[in-house]
């Protein structure tokens, strides 16, 4: 019994840690463009996002009854060691991509970790590869394209309709709109992603008999999952916010509103149609569409390429780490401890490296590159500067 409770405690803590990195990683999805256009000040933006993520966790628990939506065979395959290994893979990949300032999908990292850990721990038959294709790969390709196209169209229309309007009214109006559209993304994110953690903790408890089969998440699970994701969100993954807000394109309020609306719409329609998708990819796709739909039709293709490569790598990379971790964790308690130690050491190392070039609320809008040459000569720091003056719209 002692063995089980040690492992279960480790899994729960790791799941909450993953939830934290998830919030941290995905603040940018909802808030990057609002911060970039000055619709919200950085600190306020992350506070709103954190609050709505927490609120979102309480809206629904239906997704939380499954870890993976059928990607791995949960009935036979899953035991706490595998879940732990999967989480380790997902956390490390999330931190590595954060360090590089690249928005990658936290859900894909989790699924990748699960697939890798299951293949090693149970065998390839524990993974439903059909479901992987139809529930992960196809939406992963389709959703950013759809969001990008919708955002492109919406941006074109927004510019056409308000072509002759005063820039001040336009800037103010669309910035106000952005507050609502980014809030909606935050709320949807809290609902979707906090539920994944709830599901992991609940199913772990079920698997050791601490909860009856088919139990809904207990209140403490909902509260702690919501709190972990909200705390992570509030910390703000400023590196990723910078990449998404100003690294892909110069975003004006019209474009910010269009891309956020597109992202919110795609997320809501597809989750109500039963497609799982990556909030990160949808939001990035939306920003790309908005960049191309703008008057200058500009996009920083170097950043686009790096993001797309990262998306492609997320699943296999997290799977590799997850598989390796599963191999060790299956050896017994010392293996679990070793994976835990590696996880802590790896996370600490990445944090230390990040301190060499810190990105925070004060310099998030400064430069466009994640690895900047110290300070760009004409950097405009004040995020409150109306975008209409800095952008030749």
């Amino acid at each position, binding site marked *: 019994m002692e063995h089980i409770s040690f492992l279960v405690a480790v899994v729960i803590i790791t799941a909450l840690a993953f939830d934290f990195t998830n919030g941290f990683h995905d603040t940018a999805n909802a808030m990057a463009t609002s911060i970039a256009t000055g619709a919200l000040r950085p600190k306020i933006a992350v506070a709103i996002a954190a609050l709505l993520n927490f609120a979102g966790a309480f809206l*629904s628990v239906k997704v939380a009854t499954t870890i993976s939506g059928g990607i791995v065979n949960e009935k036979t395959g899953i035991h706490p060691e595998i879940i732990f290994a999967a989480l380790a893979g997902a956390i490390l990949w999330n931190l590595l991509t954060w360090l590089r300032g690249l928005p990658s999908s936290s859900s894909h990292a989790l699924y990748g970790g699960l697939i890798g850990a299951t293949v090693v721990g149970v065998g390839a038959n524990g993974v439903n590869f059909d479901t992987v*294709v139809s529930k992960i790969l196809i939406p992963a390709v389709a959703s950013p394209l*759809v969001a990008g*196209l919708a955002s492109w169209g919406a941006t074109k229309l927004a510019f056409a309709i*308000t072509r002759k*309007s005063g820039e001040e009214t336009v800037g103010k109006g669309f910035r106000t709109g952005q507050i609502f559209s980014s809030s909606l993304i935050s*709320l949807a994110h809290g609902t979707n992603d906090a539920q994944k953690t709830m599901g992991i903790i609940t199913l772990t408890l079920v698997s050791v008999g601490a909860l009856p089969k088919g139990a809904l998440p207990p209140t403490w699970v909902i509260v702690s999952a919501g709190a972990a994701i909200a705390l992570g969100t509030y910390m703000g993954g400023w590196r990723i916010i910078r990449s998404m807000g100003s690294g892909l394109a110069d975003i004006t309020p019209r474009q910010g509103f269009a891309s956020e609306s597109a992202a*919110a719409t795609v997320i*809501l329609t597809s989750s109500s149609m039963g497609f799982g998708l990556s909030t990160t990819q949808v939001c990035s796709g939306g920003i790309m569409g908005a960049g191309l739909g703008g008057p200058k039709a500009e996009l920083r293709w170097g950043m686009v390429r790096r993001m797309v490569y990262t998306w492609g790598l997320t699943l296999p990379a997290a799977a590799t780490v997850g598989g390796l971790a599963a191999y060790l964790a299956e050896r017994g308690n010392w293996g679990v401890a070793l994976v835990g130690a590696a996880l802590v050491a790896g996370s600490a190392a990445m944090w230390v490296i990040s301190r060499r070039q810190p990105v925070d609320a004060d310099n998030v809008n400064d430069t466009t590159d994640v690895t900047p040459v110290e300070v760009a000569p004409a950097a405009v720091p004040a995020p409150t500067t109306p975008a209409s003056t800095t952008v030749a719209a």
Partner: protein
Amino acid sequence: MHIKWNALAQTAGVSFGITVGVVAVFALGILALSRREAALTARREAAGPGTAVTGGRLALAGAYTCFAVCGAAVLYGLSLIANK
């Protein structure tokens, strides 16, 4: 392997339609606001400094209608999240 291409296409179409629709309506609202602003400024200049200027109520009503439509779309979105 069973892939729901139909549902996928439907999702894509609906997403595109709603996004473009909402953003267009919102932009129309802003257009109305800025027209009103321009009209008021013109009248203010004609009336001379210090005079109170009214008017543009129709434009304002139009703008608010547009924003209300967008608000309804947001509420619908919220209901989708909550009922999932």
